[in-house]
């Protein structure tokens, strides 16, 4: 199954009819299956949405995410902090767009290219779009697998080691949204 096919999931509804449900964030086939496996686990789990910045994987709780959009021309606003790129109208609502790489001091080059996406997150009252290099997917983690690492900075919650080659850094969204 390709990535595109996973966008629409076929779900058996309560009335027995098959429904098509569009996932808000497209998971990859691999981690979708992975998440199904882990769902049977009884340990406390955490669903996250992950994305890449300069080749490193970052993530936050899936509950904070609203949708993913392709980058469009952003309207600049004068006299705002450097990591705020401006605003976009997302479904009629004005959303501020944050350059996540600049915000996390990961270099000043804004994410661009075909895979770059804007991940919209936040509360119903106020949403922020985060510009990222590319999306990862929705994953399920055991809550106790999060390592509290000192010295990461206040915008981070901890690190999860998935395999020797792959680590995911969890962002503290409340701090990130509150600090804009």
């Amino acid at each position, binding site marked *: 199954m390709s990535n595109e096919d996973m966008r629409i999931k076929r779900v058996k509804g309560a009335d027995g009819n098959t429904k098509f449900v569009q996932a808000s964030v497209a998971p990859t086939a691999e981690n979708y299956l992975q998440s199904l496996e882990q769902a049977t686990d009884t340990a406390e789990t955490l669903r996250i949405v992950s994305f890449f910045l300069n080749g490193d994987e970052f993530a936050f709780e899936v509950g904070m995410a*609203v949708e993913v959009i392709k980058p*469009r*021309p952003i*309207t*600049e*606003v*004068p*006299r*705002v*902090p450097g990591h*705020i790129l*401006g*605003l*976009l*109208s997302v479904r*009629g*609502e*004005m*959303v*501020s767009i944050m350059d996540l790489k600049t915000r996390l001091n990961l270099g000043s080059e804004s994410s661009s290219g075909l895979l770059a996406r804007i991940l919209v997150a936040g509360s*119903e009252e*106020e*949403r*922020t779009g985060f510009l990222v290099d590319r999306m990862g997917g929705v994953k399920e983690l055991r809550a106790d697998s999060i390592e509290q690492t000192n010295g990461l900075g206040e915008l981070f919650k901890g690190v999860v080691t998935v395999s020797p080659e792959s680590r995911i850094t969890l962002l503290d969204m409340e701090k990130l949204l509150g600090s*804009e």
Partner: protein
Amino acid sequence: MVKKNKKDERFKEFLVEAEDILSAMGRDLLKLGKGVKAGLIDPSVLNSIFRSAHTLKGISGIYDFKDMAVLSHALEDTLDMLRLDRVTLSDELLGHVMDAHEMLVGIIASKGAGDFTIPVQELKASLVGSCQVKKSKDDLNIDKKILATLTEYEAHRLRDNLKQSKNILIVAVRFPIISFDKGYAALIDVLKTGSEVIATLPSAESVADMLSFDILIGTLETDTGIKALAGKIAEVEVRRIAGPMTESTPGEIKGVEPLAAPAAPETLRRVSDSVRVDIEKLDNIMNIVSELGMLKSSVARLSAEMKNDTRLSFYGIELSRIEAYLERKFTELRDSVLDIRMVPIGQLFSRFETFITKLARETGKEIRLETKGDDTEIDKLIVEELADPLMHIIRNIVDHALEHPVERESAGKERYGTIALKAFQSGNHVVIEVIDDGIGIDEVVIKEKALEKGILSSEDATTLTRHQILELIFMPGFTTRDSVSTTSGRGVGMDVVKENIARLSGIVDIETVKGEGTKFSLTIPITLAIVQALIVEELGVRYAVPLSSVIEIAELHSSTVAENSEYVRFNDRDILYIRLGEFFYRKETEAPEIKETCYGIVVGLAEQRLCIIVDRLLEELDVVVKPLPRVLRVGGVAGAADVGDEGTMLVADVTGILELLPEGRTAYISSEEAV
């Protein structure tokens, strides 16, 4: 995303309802206060206040507002005794009742967050403490069977009517079941003019399709007179059950002064046909309207293209005809939605009556409120935003500007000070004036105090214009008082006024004459929901400039904009100018260079003028200005608007731009000194 919590929504409804009840109660209390002064207590007003307290108690119980439940219960008990005439309405008791109303308003304003337990208990004790019980009355000389069906209040009204030597009549009437409500209402209306309806009692004589009532009234009329009057509406029988019979011939029924509205009959039907709508729902409709507007312009573009294509021109012409019709209907739709949002400003003005009465009581001053232009309409949301600034202004006037009655008399003024609230429409703006006849603002004192508080430096003090000195009262922390009073003097308030009005894209102006009084003028846009905007282009970026603040537009030549001058010659006047690109300075752009031909847009509010220079003028559009996320809220930007295919553009906030002008530049035109 997250569905709105049902409970939250119901809680909001509760707050709205409680506010409505409290504002009605406030109005009644005011009437009652006036009545007490005149020595005449209107029983229907007292009863209406009682009902408000009763309803409040009921709804606060449902929503577990404990402080409010306790207080409204105590208030209900007190008012019950008052309306039954068991206790005397003393000035002290009236004061406590008004305090209770104010505290209830406070509890609602805190949305359940504040803890009022202690003040509520204290107030409850004062309410009970100031009730002086009257001796009970002699019993009535009326049929015990009728008395038994009356409530205690109705019995009290009956006694009161007898005491006034009125006739007590029973009007027996029957209506067909299908139309009884209309007939009944009409009959009560007729009876109310000149009589008091004490009670409506269902009659045992009702048959299958007819309903019978016995209406108990107290009147100066005779039974024959009432029969003739009521007979015009329905088939009635009238009999007298008590009271002195006065000689009167039928046909002489006229010219009886109507009593003040008697207690309305109990009914579950709502009197008003209006619907209460959450303003968010209207905002939502407004958004849809604006999207429709964009679709409309797409249709217009398409029809223009088709007209130019020889093969399709026939369809193009047809389509443009339809588009013109669509345009008309669209405008109607937009105007009707805007109209729904509009409320008369009198709603706001009337809230200040109780407020001023209370302040007058606290300060020992005599104050009269005058209002004018009550039916001037303004956006509901703006009305709410105006409440606090006006309150702060009035508070300051009462505390600082109005003199005590004795001082006023010795200055040759009337004993009572007058505060006038006036509203009138001026183009797309509403001007609200708060005028007092107090002592006026003394610039010398303002300057001294500002120096003392460190708000003003001594070098600046010498160069300030009169207008700039007056503006100092809006600085945070400014106060002319050395001690803090209960009403004002904390140096908080007037800065809130300026801030709130600026947030509404409005402006505050002061005119003052020493010894004669002060006028505050607030100039506010009628609505913020949809604005007509001029779309301009500057350095390749499009912006929307609200037309409501545009005064004139002209094509300029680069030579007119003299180098090294801050002013541009405009119709024989020098007006300060700024390049829009200079204001919306962007990181990567260099210092903007003025093109050979550019456009000057003169904007202004009140007496301030500024010429904004842009590269191109594009079109005029209706735009819905949407608020920006917190992080993007910067001065000079009112919000952003979606403009169809053109994408999103920033909407300039003229007030904000005027405020943010670089140091030393002032946009006041030269006539300012003459004010």
